[in-house]
């Protein structure tokens, strides 16, 4: 349908939709007066049961671990889709003369990459004690690796962004989550039961399998994002190389 017809249909439909939305939202409990028992229960119970002080991470990897498995596979599938669309179109290994000349940028960049990598790893490692976790830390680690491309040349990035390195890492991350869950299944308990003991509250040795699932997720998220970035950067760099040659 043409653009005018589409707009003529859309504006009243939007009005009806907005009215219905407001009508539905008015029926919710007042803002700040949270009603459901699940949230209150988890806040009380999570720390004594799992000895993990970041309740959100306990929910993501333990109480709602199965949902996280689903989300990880959404991530995996979307990355597979991007790879199918973008890989293999372009000729191999373009030669690009884009090394950064300025020493200040290179030195500052090396320091920044190191700092960002450390922050990312810290976010992952202490994710179940303080705000953080596999997802956030994984994105920060991917950003630190991307910084390598920004402060030096494309050739240095190719070492990190090569498909031979990243594809297995991503698969290990996604598969690791499933394997840890299956380990519980093998011993006769339901899938993804937290097998290992809870440990001491407030230290790194707490939460049982939350720690391992955390690291598997971080690996998968960072590898998946790096695959994405590398596919997109290849798309970006190839016309530049064709221009400059």
């Amino acid at each position, binding site marked *: 349908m043409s653009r005018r017809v589409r707009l003529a249909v859309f504006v009243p439909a939007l009005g009806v939709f907005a009215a219905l*939305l407001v009508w539905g939202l008015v029926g919710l409990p007042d*803002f700040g007066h949270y009603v459901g028992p699940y949230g209150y229960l988890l806040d009380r119970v999570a720390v004594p049961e799992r000895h993990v002080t970041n309740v959100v991470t306990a929910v993501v990897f333990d109480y709602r671990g199965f949902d996280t498995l689903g989300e990880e596979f959404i991530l995996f599938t979307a990355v597979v889709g991007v790879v199918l669309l973008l890989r293999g179109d372009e000729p191999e290994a373009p030669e690009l003369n884009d090394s950064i000349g300025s020493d200040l940028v290179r030195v500052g960049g090396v320091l920044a990459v190191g700092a960002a990598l450390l922050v990312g790893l810290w976010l992952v490692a202490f994710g179940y004690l303080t705000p953080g976790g596999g997802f956030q830390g994984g994105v920060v680690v991917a950003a630190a690796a991307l910084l390598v491309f920004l402060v030096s040349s494309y050739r240095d990035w190719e070492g990190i962004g090569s498909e031979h390195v990243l594809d297995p890492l991503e698969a290990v991350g996604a598969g690791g989550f499933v394997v840890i869950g299956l380990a519980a299944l093998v011993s006769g308990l339901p899938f993804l039961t937290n097998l290992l003991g809870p440990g001491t509250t407030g230290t790194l040795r707490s939460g049982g399998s939350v720690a391992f699932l955390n690291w598997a997720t971080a690996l998968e998220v960072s590898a998946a994002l790096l695959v994405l970035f590398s596919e997109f950067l290849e798309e970006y760099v190839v016309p530049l190389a064709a221009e400059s040659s």
Partner: protein
Amino acid sequence: MSFLPYALAAWICCVGLYGIVTSRNLVHLALCLTVTQSSTYVLLLAIGYVQGGGPPIFKGVKLGTTAVDPVVQALVLTDIVVSVTVLALILALALDVHKEAGTVDPDAIAEMSG
């Protein structure tokens, strides 16, 4: 005051939908889609808020202090990371369309056949 965050979520959702329908550029459309997605994050977090509650992190904080709902936060934070990959997928499709059709205008693409 108590309805304001829900009204914000509804407003952002409608604004995003308007942007998607009236878009002339597939990249602009993808960004409007992220705006619409963000309205769901605001709605979920607003539902979980407890008056006077702090974040659900108990390191150094006495157990039993009021905290907001952790379950909705778990849903939203995995969602945000996944939305990047979905955006990348949409943009990869847009790039493909541009290679085939030479344009990223949704109206022009719709008129093509075959």
